[in-house]
């Protein structure tokens, strides 16, 4: 039983990171019908910004700031940095192609993805960097529930992810910007006619999605330590899978999809073998696609007349 619960914690950690990445894919798709393949790289950049802040503060072993200040600072810097990067990508790679055939921005997205990967390789070389989190917040610090150990870092990651997701939900459902985003997603032309500055709404969507990816990058750095130029590829793929499983374009769907993928991976590794974890993930994807082609929470696309 404790083994089962331990996997629940592992799966939730992984799942909350996937969910944050999936949200960025889903929001952008919802509003532009564009698969932003550069999203994984935005997450990679977020992880590097977090690493940069950590290094500037003296590194994990000998930080000049207490962990309680440093970690929020890392999150803040990564989120803002990634957010601005997302806006820049939208402005220079997608907006000029707004009225081009749908394949054009998609190719542009793949190009941006390669560009960012190569840029990171150029700037940081291919060496795998290590957050060395245990030096900052020892993994042995945490909550013990009976025989179960949950480290503080994991609690931090899961709680931060939940807070961000709640904040996003409130933003989309309760604010003027959220209303404008929903309107733009529903029908961009009609929204523009109603006086909504759709370009600004789209930029804001990219900003918010990228902020979440930046946070996910720091989380991965904190829990799984390793940061390198190629990390965005697989994470982006998993986030994308999560978004599709949940129903792309649907915000609660992305959250559920992310958690589902994370849990599936953890349980497959624990009860079958690590070699099957990706098999299980993509089997779930195929299964969902067969039964509900629009995803768990997705609504079938309506043909606009």
């Amino acid at each position, binding site marked *: 039983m404790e*083994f089962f619960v*331990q*996997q629940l914690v*592992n*799966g939730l*950690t*992984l799942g909350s990171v996937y969910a944050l990445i999936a949200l960025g894919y889903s929001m952008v798709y919802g509003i532009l019908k564009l*698969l932003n*393949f550069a999203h994984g790289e935005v997450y990679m950049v977020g992880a590097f910004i977090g690493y940069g802040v950590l290094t500037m503060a003296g590194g994990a072993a000998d930080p000049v700031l207490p962990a309680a200040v440093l970690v929020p600072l890392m999150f803040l810097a990564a989120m803002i940095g990634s957010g601005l990067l997302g806006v820049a990508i939208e402005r220079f790679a997608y907006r000029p192609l707004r009225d081009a055939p749908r*394949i054009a921005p*998609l190719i542009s*997205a*793949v190009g941006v*993805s*390669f560009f960012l990967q*190569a840029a990171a*390789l*150029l700037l940081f*070389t*291919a*060496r*795998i960097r*290590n957050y060395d*989190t*245990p030096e900052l917040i020892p*993994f*042995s610090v945490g909550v013990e529930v009976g025989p179960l*150990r949950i*480290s503080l870092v994991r609690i931090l990651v899961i709680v931060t992810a939940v807070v961000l997701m709640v904040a996003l939900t409130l933003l989309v459902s309760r604010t003027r910007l959220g209303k404008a985003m929903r309107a733009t997603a529903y029908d961009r032309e009609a929204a523009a006619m109603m006086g909504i500055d759709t370009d600004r709404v789209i930029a804001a969507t990219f900003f918010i999605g990228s902020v979440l990816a930046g946070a996910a990058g720091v989380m*991965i750095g904190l*829990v*799984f*330590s*390793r940061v*390198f*130029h*190629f*990390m965005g*590829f*697989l*994470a982006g*793929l998993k986030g*994308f899978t999560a978004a*599709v499983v949940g129903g*792309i374009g649907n915000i609660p769907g992305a959250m559920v999809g992310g958690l589902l993928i994370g849990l599936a*991976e*953890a*349980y*497959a*590794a*624990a009860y079958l*073998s*690590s*070699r099957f*974890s*990706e098999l299980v993930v993509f089997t779930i994807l195929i299964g969902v*696609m067969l039964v509900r082609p629009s995803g768990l929470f997705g609504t079938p696309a309506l043909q606009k007349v």
Partner: protein
Amino acid sequence: MLVLAVLALAAAGCGGEDDATTGDTGAATATTDAATTAAETPETPTEPTAGAEETTTGPTTEAEDTGDGQAAPADCDGLSVGIAGPFTGDAASIGQEQLNWARFALERFNADNGTNFALVEADTQLDPAQATTVAQQFVSNGDILAVVGPAGSQEAEAVGPIFEPDNLAYIGMSATRTSLTGGDYPTFFRVVPNDDAQGPTDATYMVDELGAQNVFIIDDQTSYSTGLADIVQPLLEEAGVTVTRDSVPQDQTDFSALVSRISDDTDIVFLPWQLAASAQLFSQQMEEQGKTATIFGSDGLFSPDDFSAEGAYVSSFAPDITALPEQAELVEAYTEQYGEFGTFGPPTYAATQVALTAVLAACEAGDVSREAVLEQVGDVTITDSILGAPLTFDANGDVEGAQFYIFRIEGGEYVLVE
């Protein structure tokens, strides 16, 4: 939409196919008269070669004119050696180090011998398919007389049949799978010992010195890793050790679930992996879950910068070259120019040295052909090899008298224990 995703991924997969270089431009530079060419600045160390559309020549001979001034025969100009490695992709941290050491070896060789050989660099991304394309490009480039690499055993297997008809010698700097030198790949040589040496060394040490009772072996699904695990497992079982075996993809980012499967009576976790940073995470997650088993890693984990789990053991095909006084000058020169390095660089230096020495010898003997170079590689002797012992090849293409060393990590330092 999924179709689009697949298309995009396929595009990503194909992206590297143009990466292999043709050495034409570089060769042209190399043939320029040394007396009229100013010494070139060596490539800056941080420059990656994602496109790899370049060749490197070291400082030209002008710098040496005031020295012993021995000039290579004129028809040696413009000859090159190919290097294939994973310069981008998942294993780029290994590939970049190998590339830098190959460039470093070329610069020093050219400076020492008054040659201006060039290096043709090609990216394989540790992918046999990519390596095949690269191999074909190497074969069709007449300037290339020998090849350093490719890095992975799976790639070395893929390129063998392409090199063989052209008698193109290729010298592995990290491919340790035993079967490579069994006769199927007659143009293959390697400067590192094979897993027939590593496996028994590791297994014996675990049983005799560490008193292993219960060992968990986790391979990383590469040809290198499964091969080594397959050698170690029966040796341990014969010695009465209980062995559990699992496997995890090399690009895995989280080992938590795997770590929780380590039973409490497991005393050693054997990780024949290629990425040291992954093992570091594995050890951190073991600590997180209160697992106390000792990690025993293979040569791939020898990387003091990336892997520092207290009390862990690592085997290596070379003594720590930073601890060898006779290599201090070399280590310092490299570090100054290119920065820190792990375990994959020095063998690449040795392999490049072998290739260049053979090309020069063939050239001095007046027979500049791949066949002649292949023969010369077999006869090369490097007396003061960077790997700590004289380097010669046996009839199979393996290094004579190769042995493995075992280190224990104590306070972040690698201490030689056997």
